[in-house]
C-alpha cells in the first residue's frame, strides 16, 4: 500500500539479512562427524533475505499503484497510554505481583480507552484479575507471582 513504508521496510530487512549473514560467518562451520555445519542454513537464508529485500526495494520504484489515502485519524493518544501501560505492567509484574499489577493495568487501560464509569472500571478490573488468579492458581494449580515478594507472599 504505502510505498514509503515498503522502502524503509526493505532497508530494514536488508540490514537484518546482512546481520544474519555476517553473524553466521562467525559460527564454527563444521562440527565433527557432520558434513553440514550449523552455519549453512542461516547463511543461505540471510542471502535470500537480502535478495528479496532488493526485489522489494526495486519494486517500490516501479509499481504504478497509486498511494492510497487513508484519512481516518488514528487514536494515537489512547494507543500510547495502552502501550505504556502494557510495558509498565510487564516491568512490574514480578515486582509487585500478578494481582496488583493486573488490577492497576486494567484500571489504567479501561480509563485510557475511554474516561468515566469508575465503579464499573474498578469492579471489572478487580473481578478479572482476581478471577484469573483464582482459576489459575487455585483450580489449575499453576504458579504466578501472586503478591509482592517483599511482603513475604
Amino acid at each position, binding site marked *: 500500500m504505502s510505498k514509503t513504508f515498503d522502502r524503509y521496510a526493505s532497508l530494514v530487512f536488508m540490514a537484518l539479512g546482512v546481520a544474519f549473514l555476517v*553473524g553466521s560467518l562467525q559460527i564454527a562451520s563444521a562440527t565433527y562427524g557432520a558434513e553440514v555445519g550449523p552455519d549453512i542454513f542461516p547463511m543461505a537464508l540471510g542471502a535470500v533475505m537480502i535478495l528479496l529485500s532488493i526485489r522489494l526495494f526495486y519494486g517500490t520504484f516501479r509499481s504504478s499503484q497509486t498511494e492510497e489515502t487513508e484519512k481516518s485519524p488514528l487514536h494515537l493518544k489512547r494507543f500510547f497510554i495502552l502501550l505504556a501501560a502494557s510495558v509498565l505492567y510487564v516491568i512490574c509484574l514480578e515486582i509487585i505481583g500478578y494481582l496488583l499489577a493486573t488490577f492497576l493495568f486494567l484500571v489504567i487501560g479501561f480509563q485510557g480507552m475511554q474516561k468515566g464509569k469508575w465503579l464499573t472500571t474498578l469492579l471489572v478490573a478487580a473481578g478479572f484479575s482476581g478471577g484469573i488468579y483464582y482459576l489459575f492458581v487455585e483450580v489449575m494449580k499453576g504458579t*504466578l507471582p501472586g503478591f509482592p515478594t517483599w511482603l513475604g507472599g
Partner: protein
Amino acid sequence: MESLEYLMKGFQIALQWQNILFAFIGVFIGTCVGTLPGIGPISGVALLIPVTATMTGGMPPEQAAASSIILLAGIYYGAMYGGSTTSILLNTPGDSAAVVTTLDGYQMAKQGRAGQALAISAIASFSAGIISLIGMVLLSEPLSNLALHFGPAEYFSLMLLGLCAVSGLAGKSMTKALLMTVFGLLIGTIGVDNVSGISRFTFDYPPLYQGVEFLTVAVGLFALGEVFKTILERKDAEGKVAEVGTILPTRQQLKQSAAPIGRGSVLGFLVGVLPGAGATLATFFAYIMERKLHKDPDRFGKGAVEGVAGPEAANNGASGGAMIPMLTLGIPGSGTTAVLLGALVMYNIQPGPLLFEEHPTVAWGLIASMFIGNLFLLILNLPLIRMFTKIVDTPIKYLIPCIIAISIFGVYAVQVSTFDLFLLIGFGLLGYLLARHDYPLAPVVLGVVLGPMIENNMRRALTGSNGDWLIFLQKPISLTFLIASLLLLVVPLLLQMRKPKQNATEAM
C-alpha cells in the same frame, strides 16, 4: 476398511468425558471469540494456546496433546461460525472468509430475517463439517501410506513446497510473502542449534538460548497486532445490531438451501485441501457458483438464502479441508492451521506423514471430535443465537485491555519469563505495522514452526549423502516436490508479466 476402524477408536477418544467437555468449551469460546469485535479465528486460537496448555498440564503428554488440539480446533471452527454472525447482524465480517456472507446475510437481516439467516448458516456449517469429515477419513489413509516412503530428503522438499505454497498463493505481493517466510525461518534459527550444540545469534544472552518461542511470536503478531489495530483505527460508533426475528427457517428456505449447502461443502473442502488457498477463496467461489447456477441471479444481493447457505458451507468445508494437509503433510493451508500446527509442535507432536502412524490418538481423536464439535455448534447455536448477538455489543473499552491482559498472562504462564513478555509486545507492534502494509503474517509463524524441522531434515539428508546436494534431485518424490515448489513461485510471476496492468486493479 482400516480407516473406519481407526475412526471408531478416534470416537472412543473423542467421547471421553474430558474431551467432550473440551470440544464443548472450544466451540463455545470459539463462537464468542468470533462474535466479539476485534478478535478473529487466528488470534482466538493463538490466545488460547497457553490457556489450554495449563488446563491439560496434569495429563500424560499424548492425551494432553489430543485434548488441547480438540479444544483449539473447536475454537477454530466455532470462530469461523461466529465471524459470520457479525456479518449477518452488523454487516461487519469477523474475518475475511465471512465477507461474502454480508452480501445476502445482511440484506436478510434488514428484512427482519436475521434469525433465519443465522440458522441456515449454522445448518450449512454443520453439514459442511460432516462432509469434510468424510473427506478426511477417505484421504488420510492413502496420504499416510504414501508417506511411508519418505526420508529426510523428501521431508525437506515437502516442507519447502509447503512454504512456497503459502507464500505463492496467499497475499497480494509474493515478494512480501516470501520475505515474511524467510523472516520467520531466520527467527527459528535463533538459539542453541540442537545438532551441534552451538549457540547461534544469542549474543550470550541466556534467555535467547532456548530460541524465540513460537507461542510468543503467534500471540504477539496475531492477538496483540489485532488489538493495537483496534485501538488505533476503530471508531467508537458502530452500526446498530439488527433484530434477530424468527429463528426457525421455513420449509421452503430449507429446500432452497439444501443444494447450495451440498455444493458449497464439497467445493469448500476441495479448495481447503489445496495448501495456501484457504477459506476466503472458497467462499468467493461458492457465491459466484450459486449465482451462476441460479435461475434468477438477480435475487442475489437482495437477501437470497442461497447466497448465505453456499458460502457458509464452503467456509466450514474449507476449514475442515485445511486440516488435511496440516495433519498429513505438515503444510497448513491458512494462518489458523499454521497456529494449530505450532500448537502440535509445542506438544512434541510432529504433524506430517507419520502423524497417523505415530500418534493415532491425536490424529483420529481430533477428526472424530470434529464431528462432535460440529454437533455442539448446531445444538449450541440454534437456541443461543440471541445470547451470542448480545456479545456483539461488548464495549471495546473493557474488551481491549482484557485481551492484552490475557495475552500477557498466557505467555507468562507458559514461559515464566519477563523477557518473553517484552518480545510479545514487540511482536505485537511489528504485527500491526506489517499487517497494515499488506505483509502477510501467517508465513512468519509458519517459518518459525517449520524452520528447525526443515534445517534438521536438510542436514540429515546431507549427512546421509556425504554432503552431496544432488541428493534432493536424485530422489524422485523429492524432485517432484521441488519442481512443484518452483512452479508455485514461477507461474504467478509469469502470469503477472502477461497482464501487468490488470493485476494492480485486481487486488481483492
